[in-house]
């Protein structure tokens, strides 16, 4: 009989399909693992409402557990509380940086406040260090990047464009 701790260990090896250097548990999207008789119940929360990776993530989780011999798997979705980048583990943040994605800077998620936005655009509030050369001299290109969870930034020193895992 499989244990809950064993399932968590297995899930820690399931990579995020978009950013394969971090796992689904690093990302903080696995909210619960439970056992109902022989059935393993994994509760997953989506990152962004429309994130197209959600279906793939569910498929990968089910595939991994079946690969470990689990016969009955049920995936449940939980929306509340909403996923936050605050849930990214320290380890995950380092892995992101090493992969070339600037990790989120906690406490800077959009508040829908227009004055705040103008301040941020002038660079007064948000400094995102370049994940490649480490320079603090960087600029936001767009709050919307290659996936819903990332913003497009560029380094003014090494000139490399990079993704910033924006706060939500």
């Amino acid at each position: 009989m499989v244990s809950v701790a064993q399932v968590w260990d297995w899930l820690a090896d399931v990579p995020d399909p978009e950013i394969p250097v971090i796992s689904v548990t690093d990302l903080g999207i696995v909210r619960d693992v439970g056992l109902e008789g022989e059935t393993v119940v994994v509760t997953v929360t989506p990152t962004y409402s429309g994130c197209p990776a959600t279906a793939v993530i569910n498929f990968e989780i089910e595939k991994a557990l079946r690969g470990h011999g689990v016969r009955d798997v049920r995936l449940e979705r939980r929306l509340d509380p909403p996923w936050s980048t605050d849930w990214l583990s320290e380890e995950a943040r380092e892995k992101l940086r090493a992969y070339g994605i600037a990790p989120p800077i906690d406490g800077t998620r959009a508040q829908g406040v227009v004055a705040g936005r103008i301040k941020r655009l002038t660079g007064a509030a948000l400094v995102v260090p370049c994940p490649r050369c480490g320079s603090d001299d960087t600029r936001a290109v767009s709050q919307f990047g290659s996936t819903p969870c990332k913003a497009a930034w560029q380094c003014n020193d090494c000139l490399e464009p990079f993704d910033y895992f924006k706060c939500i």
Partner: protein
Amino acid sequence: MDTMTDLDTALFAGLCRLGDSTLVLGHRVSEWCGHAPVLEEDIALANVALDLIGQTQMWLGLAAEIEGKGRDADALAFRRDVWEFRNLLLVERPNGDFGHTLMRQFLFDAWHQPMLKALESSGDPRIAGIAAKAGREVAYHLERSADLVIRLGDGSLESHNRMQAALDTLWPYTGEMMTADATDQALAEAGIMAAPDSIRPEWDALVRDVLAEATLGIPPGTHMHKGGKQGQHSEHLGHMLATMQWLQRAYPDATW
């Protein structure tokens, strides 16, 4: 036989108003994919469309659950006809130019953000949960659309004139967002959804500030179109649905 209670019937309509508005706007914005003036804006538009369509799945998914007739979010999105849609008239307006699209987005976001904030206090935890999730995404939408309305309005003479023209065209479609009917009132009294008119002070203040910063003038006319929330739409929605629903109607139950 209809076995839904009056409150569930109102709730179904209320959820369709939210979900249809995000669906129709999401589809409209997605029409830009591959056509925006610069790559970053193309990506931003696609991201916003994706968020809105994701939110649609949650709102219409819950609507289908409340209805309890075996339909799901896809069935509601792709198998209903134009008169069954409950979206705001504003969001079915054609895209026009880039500035026009951004002005429509801003006028909607300025309502969407405070509405979601209010819905976070819904007595129905399912609605509160969806609102909290969607609200974090919409905060980014609003910051972007407000920023671009300011930049384009207070930009060149050409961009200013286009933004003013967009505002003049779209302004009469904004009143519907903040006008309550009997359905809205029933939901507000039950503590399930915020009354649309309660959003007005925040919307007014935000829109006034941003348009002033953008050097744009609010049109003097007071006539406001309405009817979308009750299923009376402009000719534009039917054309849009013909494109959006084509595949599911030609090949019912098609899957990947």
